[in-house]
């Protein structure tokens, strides 16, 4: 793996540890308000300053990592599972199954700008983290299904699959034992890049007030409320923005690095 990929993975592991240990790492209570010290710039006791309620920005940022990564990982896990199942069915069975899935389902889901569909669902269902995860999963599975369908189409024609079929192996066995292990590599790459996309989508929707709700801190929401104090307290925008950028960058570099490592010849899959 190249050095950029390694940096990506080091950052990813670091972020996961931060999210895991947020309660231990956070220097202050994330709810503790001190209106007398609101909008205070970074200081020794509060390295990232205080927000509009005098709450510690660093502590809220650390807890925000928990929310972002939880949503990101859960969404990718759901999308990858559902996408693999549907993509494998389309690729393996072909015919009408494939025409319905890749011709109709894929086109319909891709007909909406992803973020808009998620926004629409949350607008009608009401904002909450669970609705956010549901909405992002509903828009996200298609890219995995397309990837797996393409891979299965390629692999199912190979000799070892034909051999398995010839000795009478069932469809389920052929798919699970012979085909899926051979399509898992691009799936891992896509999933790693997918976490970046999901983290970004969560932050966008929370920024619009449609994702994570108070009192849970979220980077997108912190950025949104910080905008009102851009001239007096730019740290309220700077630090959450930086946290999102570093996380997105980390998963992108890690995904690219993984892709390079697994297939030195193949270009990055479309995200």
């Amino acid at each position: 793996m190249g050095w950029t990929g390694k940096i990506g993975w080091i950052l990813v592991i670091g972020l996961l540890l931060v999210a895991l240990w947020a309660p231990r790492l956070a220097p202050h209570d994330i709810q503790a308000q001190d209106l007398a010290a609101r909008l205070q710039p970074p200081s020794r006791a509060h390295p990232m300053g205080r927000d509009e309620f005098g709450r510690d920005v660093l502590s809220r940022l650390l807890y925000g990592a928990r929310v972002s990564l939880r949503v990101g990982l859960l969404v990718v896990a759901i999308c990858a599972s559902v996408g693999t199942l549907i993509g494998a069915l389309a690729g393996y069975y072909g015919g009408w199954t494939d025409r319905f899935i890749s011709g109709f389902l894929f086109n319909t889901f891709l007909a909406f700008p992803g973020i808009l569909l998620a926004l629409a669902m949350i607008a009608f269902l009401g904002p909450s983290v669970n609705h956010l995860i549901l909405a992002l999963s509903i828009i996200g599975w298609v890219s995995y299904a397309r990837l797996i369908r393409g891979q299965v189409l390629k692999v199912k024609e190979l000799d070892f699959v034909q051999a398995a079929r010839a000795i009478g192996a069932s469809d389920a066995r052929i798919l699970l034992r012979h085909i899926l292990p051979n399509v898992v590599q691009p799936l891992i790459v896509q999933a790693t890049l997918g976490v970046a996309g999901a983290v970004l989508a969560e932050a966008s929707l929370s920024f619009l007030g449609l994702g994570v709700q108070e009192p849970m801190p979220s980077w997108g929401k912190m950025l949104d409320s910080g905008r009102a104090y851009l001239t007096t307290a730019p740290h309220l925008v700077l630090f959450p923005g930086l946290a999102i950028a570093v996380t997105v960058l980390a998963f992108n570099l890690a995904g690219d690095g993984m892709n390079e490592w697994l297939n030195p010849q193949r270009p990055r899959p479309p995200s």
Partner: protein
Amino acid sequence: MGSIMGILGRRLLLVIPVMWAVVTLVFVLLHLVPGDPVLAFLGETATPEQVAEMRHRFGLDRPLLEQYANYWKQVLRGDLGVTFVDRRPVAEKIRSRYPATLQLAVAALLVAVLIAIPLGVTAARHHGGVRDAVASVMALLGIALPNFALGPLLILLFSVKLRLLPPSGFGDPAHLILPALTLGAALAAILTRLVRTSVLEELHQDYVKTARAKGLDERTVLYRHVLRNGLIPVVTIVGLQFGVLLGGAIITERIFNWPGIGTLTIEAIAARDYPLVQGCLLVIALTYIVVNTATDLLYRVLDPRIKVE
């Protein structure tokens, strides 16, 4: 010519089921509201009479299938119903906001292309060198920095510190610069990477060797031969990304108080004005479908090597 008309016809036929699904989905969304959309809008203080009157007025007391059929009739007439809040036509509200969003999206597209082509070509020409590395880092930053972080940072720099551009507003061209930069940055980053890869690939083709062997200067080779082929995948991505721009416009408009359809959607969501939300979603999705279909057709015209399936 006949075959082009055939391709057009087949491609347009593919759009019909997608349009059907989009309209159906937008209709179904209203019925996803927990409880009842009218109750959610009026709040708990509403009297049963008020709720009943409004349900009747908006046809929500009819059987579901009848509501669905009526919705289709309305949409086909270009009538998107009336808003919950002031009972004015949804289509009228959208019509007054739509041009601003289109203006922003097109400006962002222009910004992206104007940044990406020179940057991508330079990176490819100096492959492996310092300029390539600088372009790659800029592209990575553009992808990693979301528009809701970039927008406030640009305001901080250009409006607060340098006092060069207005932080928000609408009207003269100066108001357009920061929103267009904010919205176009991510696309510029994606396109830079794409132009770089595409030009690099083309530079190794035989026809480039021939052009050079004929004694053409490097500029002519690059701009007359390489770019013409190298830009084909770029056209597709630009078209496909237009929808992403429309989605991103919702956020960018909110940052800069841009009076477009994105701000209208967010205002409608906040007011629980569900017919207005439905109308906005439908219009954005239909725009997206039209642009995608047009891109696909353009792609086929640009590169006759692409065969119809």
